[in-house]
């Protein structure tokens, strides 16, 4: 994923492609790696103890797993109403509904909505728990590379981060590329970044035996 213009947000949800009841689990991902941000060396865990994706490269340095999604009410309150009738394809979209539309194409729905990772966005958390959108986290040309460790259904939308207090409704594009890579070796940086991930990779590899 490449943020060509800077300031993009790629809201992302992930599932086991063959069995979508297995899906990204935000708390398991954070607890296993003792982190509330995601960057190179981290992995995204499913609720079944397996690694859906590894983050193998990252020039932004911080991706947000806690801020969640915008919904219609939030977008209207912050940026007003913009209907298709007047705005054509610049009409206002929101992350929650965008996920539901794409989920429906795969026979999935509201019961399958799960935690969002907001790639390219950063939330700062103060000692009292206050959450603040960190403007300028992603410079033009920033990229993050995910390696699928399973067959993964990935759903992405580029709605602005729900804590983005920008005056203008202005979602930025994200460029996607796909390539084949060799499977991770015994010394793979994501595998050895913590003992938990070593066990996570073992459990993932057992699934495909």
């Amino acid at each position, binding site marked *: 994923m490449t943020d060509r213009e800077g300031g993009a947000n790629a809201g992302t949800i992930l599932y086991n492609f063959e069995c979508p*009841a297995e899906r990204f*689990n*935000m*708390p*398991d991902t*954070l*607890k*296993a790696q*003792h*982190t*509330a*941000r995601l960057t190179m060396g981290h992995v995204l*865990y499913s*609720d*079944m*103890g*397996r690694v859906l994706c590894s983050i193998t490269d990252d020039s932004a340095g*911080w991706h947000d797993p*806690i*801020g*969640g*999604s915008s*919904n*219609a*009410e939030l977008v209207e309150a912050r940026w007003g109403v913009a209907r298709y009738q007047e705005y054509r394809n610049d009409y206002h979209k929101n992350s*929650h509904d965008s996920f539901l539309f794409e989920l429906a194409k795969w026979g999935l*729905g*509201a*019961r*399958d*909505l*799960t*935690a*969002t990772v907001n790639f390219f966005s950063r939330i*700062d*958390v*103060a*000692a*009292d*728990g*206050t*959450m*603040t959108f960190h403007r300028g986290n992603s410079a033009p040309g920033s990229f993050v590379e995910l390696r699928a460790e399973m067959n993964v259904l990935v759903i992405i939308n580029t709605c602005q981060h*729900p*804590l983005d207090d920008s005056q203008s409704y202005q979602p930025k594009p994200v460029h996607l590329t796909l390539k084949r890579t060799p499977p991770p070796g015994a010394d793979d940086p994501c595998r050895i970044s913590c003992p*938990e991930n070593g*066990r*996570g990779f*073992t*459990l993932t590899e057992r699934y495909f035996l």
Partner: protein
Amino acid sequence: MSLTASRLIPSHAVYSAEVPAGEPWMHEIRKGQYFRIVDLHGNQAVDTLFYNAHEYSDRYSAQDTIRAQGNLYLTTGTRLMSSEGHVLLTIVADTCGRHDTLGGACANESNMVRYDISKRSMHACRASFLKAVTEWGRGMNKRDITHNINFFMNVPVTPEGGLTFEDGISESGKYVEMRAEMDVLVMISNCPQLNNPCNAYDPTPIQVLIWEPPEE
């Protein structure tokens, strides 16, 4: 952290039950009723999920709750938000001061990752949740088990983005109380975790109470 006590008297509750360590508990709470969870012995993790009682796909959302209040921690005044943007309940009293909603629930599988692959057979919260939704029926299944609240747990995030499980700040008799803003279904797993020092490796029972709305 500020603490808020409740005026409600336990002997006036219309429902009171003790939930043993390691067991699930599931119950409907009607709009306007008050719901209290008491940490009877201190630092017990109470993994909790809420549902719109009339539409289970509309359920507690950890990310929507913290995003809506712009704060990571749950305490008095927090509105517990659903995935469809509804206020399920409001926390109206809290003598503990801070509750977590990032740490999620333990599971057989996450215990294998976090502690050791041999931990597969140890009892875990998501096993209790699965038991509860299976017995409750009405079409509920694993897809309805989403990211929960950990009442009485302290999981701070550092400015550098680290996540730490700190020693508990709860103690015997502390409680959290909520007012239902709509008819809700509550599902609790009274956490059986034996691998984590956050509960001093000693899961203990809790008490749950429900009051009718106070008369005006």
